[in-house]
């Protein structure tokens, strides 16, 4: 019973990195994904890249919602800030790709701090509104700060990633190389996320999500950790935005539209909030579903909407627990 903060659904699988099953599943998934270009066409690879692009802001949202118990709509604003700052750095100074990623992540994280100071004092819906408002404000700035962002024209021909190597490096252009870049980034992000949530700090964040007062009573400086979670969630989103802009090579204020924020929300809530596997599953599944529905353009969004409703009632804790149960019953694998 959370006395403050957002009340997240009670029972889900605690992120314990020592689960052998989890590690094995992760390894199998990574190997399968690494082999995907052998069988998948450009379009399928592109869809996988999109999944992985949304995975980063989704991991960030999972941190703030699933581990610190607060629902934030600012996630796509941070995504946009990361994208813009990374694109501008690359276009003005021709910086290498890895530096752009760092710039994108840091810019988002730094902006999150002054926003967090008033916002994190708020509870539940007031906090939700505050973050929603932030996305609106970010969009207005992107539209009106024309000397930097070019306003609604947006930035185009953002440089493609250059990977610096001993022999001078190469530019990422083919879809397969983009795919591997996205895969490497995603794996690193998931590992970073797992490391974070299994550290002492991660345990404190879970404690805050579970019950903020109880967490404080065991010595958790709750405000600080909520701020850290908020800033780190922004960093994840910012890095995602950075990759996004170097893949699509275009950014405009539309990135702050609710469409993106809703997609990330659906990924996290549909996959399984508070779990890493759930978010990974969610990002692949929801992009896959939305792409699969392209066979009927007119019915696509209706079917998507209906699916959301069905899924959310059939498995309110997200799809991951459903999958785990299947493994448990089917394979007889015991999950402690």
């Amino acid at each position: 019973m959370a006395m403050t903060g957002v009340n997240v659904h009670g029972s889900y699988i605690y992120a314990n990195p020592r689960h052998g099953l989890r590690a094995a599943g992760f390894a199998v998934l990574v190997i399968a994904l690494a082999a995907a270009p052998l069988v998948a066409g450009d379009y399928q690879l592109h869809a996988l890249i999109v999944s992985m692009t949304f995975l980063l802001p989704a991991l960030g949202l999972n941190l703030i919602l699933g581990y610190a118990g607060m629902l934030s709509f600012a996630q796509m604003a941070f995504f946009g800030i990361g994208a813009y700052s990374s694109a501008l750095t690359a276009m003005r100074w021709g910086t290498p790709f890895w530096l752009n990623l760092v710039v994108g992540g840091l810019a988002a994280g730094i902006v999150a701090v002054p926003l967090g100071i008033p916002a994190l004092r708020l509870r539940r819906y007031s906090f939700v509104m505050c973050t929603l408002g932030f996305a609106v404000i970010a969009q207005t700035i992107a539209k009106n700060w024309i000397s930097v962002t070019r306003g609604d024209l947006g930035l185009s021909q953002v440089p493609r990633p250059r990977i610096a190597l001993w022999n001078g490096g190469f530019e990422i252009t083919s879809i397969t190389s983009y795919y591997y870049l996205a895969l490497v980034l995603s794996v690193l992000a998931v590992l970073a996320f797992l490391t974070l949530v299994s550290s002492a700090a991660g345990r404190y964040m879970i404690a805050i999500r579970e019950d903020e007062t109880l967490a404080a009573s065991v010595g958790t400086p709750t405000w600080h950790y909520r701020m850290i979670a908020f800033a780190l969630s922004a960093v994840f989103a910012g890095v995602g935005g950075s990759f996004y802009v170097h893949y699509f090579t275009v950014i405009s204020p539309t990135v702050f539209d609710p469409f993106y924020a809703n997609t990330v929300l659906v990924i996290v809530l549909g996959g399984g909030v508070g779990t890493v596997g759930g978010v990974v599953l969610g990002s692949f599944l929801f992009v896959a579903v939305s792409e699969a529905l392209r066979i009927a353009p007119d019915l696509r969004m209706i079917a998507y909407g209906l699916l959301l409703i069905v899924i959310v009632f059939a498995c309110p804790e997200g799809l991951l627990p459903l999958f785990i149960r299947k493994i448990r019953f089917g394979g007889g694998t015991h999950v402690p």
Partner: protein
Amino acid sequence: MSPDPLAALSIRGIEKRFGSIVAVAGVSVDIKLGEICGLTGPNGSGKSTLFDCCTGLQKPSTGRVYAQGLDITGWDMHRIVREARVIRSFQKAVVFRALSVEENLVLCGQMIAFQGMASTFGVGPASRHRVRRLREQAGHLLELVGLSHMRHATAGQISFGQQKLLQFASMLMPEPQVILLDEPMAGVNPILIDRMMENINRANQEQGITFVVVEHNLDAMKALCHRLLVLSRGELIADGTPDAVVRDPAVVEAYLAG
């Protein structure tokens, strides 16, 4: 009315008002080091509010609280736990339900093992070593309270009485000076009540931990406490040995009236 620097807790003129309602009306009392002190009184007599004021959950309207001479009035709860080593329990919120039994204990021990905030992000060998030590300590405590067999169970799924025992064990993890227990026996079956009392006594005798216990179960209080305080309408009406206090006419009247 200066604070007693040797007292585990020195409460001086604590008053707490909510609008026109006075919950605690100027309580002053010293809890000696090493004592097991009961705090009782009818419903609404201000016991929980007094607890809240001593532990940072609420700020007193007036008055001050000292822990061994350290003025902790108005501190945040997490700071009181960390720096004054005064830890408390809650009636309803007992354990972190989504965590395993062991993880609950590790979490509570973190404030000692990981002092600085930066260190909590560490994942290197040093951090792993610290966590391993905490798990060992946890294992020991679980054995003491008799929960070793459910070490990996999810805390939300064990019985309420067991959760209370887990809660008690958790509170020992950071090696506190003072433990404030808010109704540790409520909703617990008689066998577990005995085990709980045994645990409190052992912690008191072996580790010298001071206890303040809010409880309605007078029989248990008589058996457990060295000293009993009675609150009524926000005021301290009795202070003495349990036997003396239960015979105090003022106390009898307060309970009958309440």
